[in-house]
């Protein structure tokens, strides 16, 4: 608890930016004897990319899973725009505008770009004819394809030309773009990215980082987890550092040097 007060003091610039959109308070998660999350508090603003760094096992993914409803925490509370919200399932989270992109992406390689973007949420004809079961109403292929094209254009993804390409034929970076596009297509305001560049080469990493930057322009609150501090410093506005299941500090990127962050990650000071 004391730590949070310190964090806020370290943030003199907070007055000029957007108000806090999302916050998690006092999150605790134990796995058997391990304190994966030990009274962690965490906050996000819209139009801001928050880096989340920390050594292996620091609890970053666990925190993201708690926020996205994929894994219930033992105690703690979530607030959106100051109001407390319950997040008990992935469905809860997505209905509150929280979307997570997992490291394994979970795309269907046998389906094309459009089908993946709209999977489980297709645009259909006859949607006001309630006598026909929803699953049997004809798909509006063209509308979906048009919107997919538009979504990728907004994200400045230029390398995917045909929306009818099967995901199996795309590169890792392109798949990452599709997964992110799917996350923000619905009315999401918060996008959680767990190591989106971990498996990517130089140029594809750059592609994805550009995409992350464009999420700031669309006024999303973005969390970017990465072990690559260069990437973190390139796109993040603020950086939250986790160590052994605790949030040990939040820093403005412009006022901080990478060495400082490394020191906090490894030695906690």
């Amino acid at each position, binding site marked *: 608890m004391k730590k949070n007060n310190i964090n806020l003091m370290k943030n003199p610039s907070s007055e000029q930016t957007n108000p806090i959109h999302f916050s998690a308070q006092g999150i605790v998660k134990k796995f058997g004897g391990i304190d994966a999350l030990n009274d962690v508090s965490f906050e996000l603003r819209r139009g801001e990319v928050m880096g989340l760094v920390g050594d292996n096992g620091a609890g970053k993914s666990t925190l993201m899973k708690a926020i996205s409803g994929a894994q219930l925490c033992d105690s703690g509370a979530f607030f959106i725009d100051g109001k407390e919200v319950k997040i008990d399932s992935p469905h809860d989270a997505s209905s509150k505008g929280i979307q997570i992109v997992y490291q394994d992406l979970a795309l269907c390689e046998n389906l094309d770009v459009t089908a993946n973007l709209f999977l489980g949420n297709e645009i259909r004809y006859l949607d006001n004819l309630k006598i026909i079961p*929803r699953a049997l109403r004809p798909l509006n292929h*063209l509308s979906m394809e048009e919107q997919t094209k538009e979504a990728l254009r907004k994200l400045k993804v230029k390398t995917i030309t045909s929306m009818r390409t099967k995901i199996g034929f795309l590169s890792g970076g392109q798949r990452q773009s599709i997964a992110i596009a799917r996350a923000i297509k619905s009315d999401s305001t918060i996008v959680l990215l767990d190591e989106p560049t971990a498996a990517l080469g130089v140029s594809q990493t750059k592609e994805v980082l550009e995409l992350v930057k464009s999420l700031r322009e669309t006024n999303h609150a973005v969390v970017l987890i990465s072990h690559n501090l260069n990437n973190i410093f390139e796109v993040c506005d603020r950086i939250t550092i986790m160590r052994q299941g605790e949030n040990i500090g939040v820093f403005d990127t412009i006022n901080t040097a990478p060495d400082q962050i490394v020191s906090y990650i490894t030695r906690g000071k």
Partner: protein
Amino acid sequence: MLKNMQEKIGYLRETQLGSFIPVLLALIAIWVYFGIVEPVFLSPRNFYFLFMQSAVVGTLAVGVTLVLLMGDIDLSIATVAGVCAAIVAVLSTNMGVSAPIACLVGLGAGALLGGIMGTVIAYFRVPSFVVTLAGLLGFQGLMMKILGIHGAINVRDPFIRGLTTTTLPDSIGLILAAIGIIIFGLTIWKSRRARNAKNLDNELLYLSIIKFVFFSTLVLTATLILNAYRGVPVTIIILLSITGFLGWLTTSTSYGRAIFAVGGNLESARRVGISIEYMRISAFALVGFMAAVGGIIGASRYASVSFNAFAGGPLLLEAIGAAVIGGTSLFGGRGSVWNAILGALVIGSLGNGLDLAGAQAADKLMFSGAILLIAVTLDALTRGGTSRK
């Protein structure tokens, strides 16, 4: 350069026309070969019987494609077909129930048996392989019980017999063919126009034209050949209509998307909120329904229902073989119900041609085995091709 070529070929295989080509080439090769060796093979009369012989296998193959797409398998289709045929036979021949009602009961029974197996697979997480194998055995017993001590029941009812003995007058056959061709052409043309208007990429014009010409020639030739003998059989119209519906269901509805998603990436399907349980139960019920359709067609063709014609013979393996030869993947996520019909024709032609050539049952089995092996190997190879990216 080479990689580019490979990608193009891979991409082509994923298109509708592209996935047709290998099985179509196989079919043409078989026809040319037997046409030379046994000229009577290419006679209108033989073609008529070829189509009719392939109808039962084709119906089951189209059905089983649904669960193959989800990465499951149904080993009980032939037996379910047998049980349903037996129910229809007992109801109509022994109990005097009117034939259409007997058929409806049979169809319902098929869907029910499939649905029950689907429920076990969905809720108890038993692999479909095992559940449907149990079904295969259990339903064999059930079929014996229904057929009673004689082991066979004759079917003389004119309605049921008529399903496979009736043919359309030449003119009606041609009109239906023309309607089919016009609808196909209009669909292509409208889709091209709409895509252009919305500034979406279109397939190359010449590909659309090839597709259209190809489809029209196929439909017209088939109709003319059948007309040269006895006309287009009603059975074929029934089979094509059901396949058309299932083709639409799998490619143009959310239900179909979900089928492909479950087969492609189960975890992904779950995360987007698709109910895996619902998908499994309904798909297996549909397969059961198709098995019943196959059973009724079989009963009609053989004018009797016997244990050997369904449960004891090679029907099961021929049906699954037909689906796989048609290009539907055993690994799930890739394939089409239309290809299953082509696959059934390949198996049917092979059997028919070898029969004409006076081949032994042993040779026939070995040939079928070889073709199936080639198809499955192709399947495994192309699967490696796409997932390696």
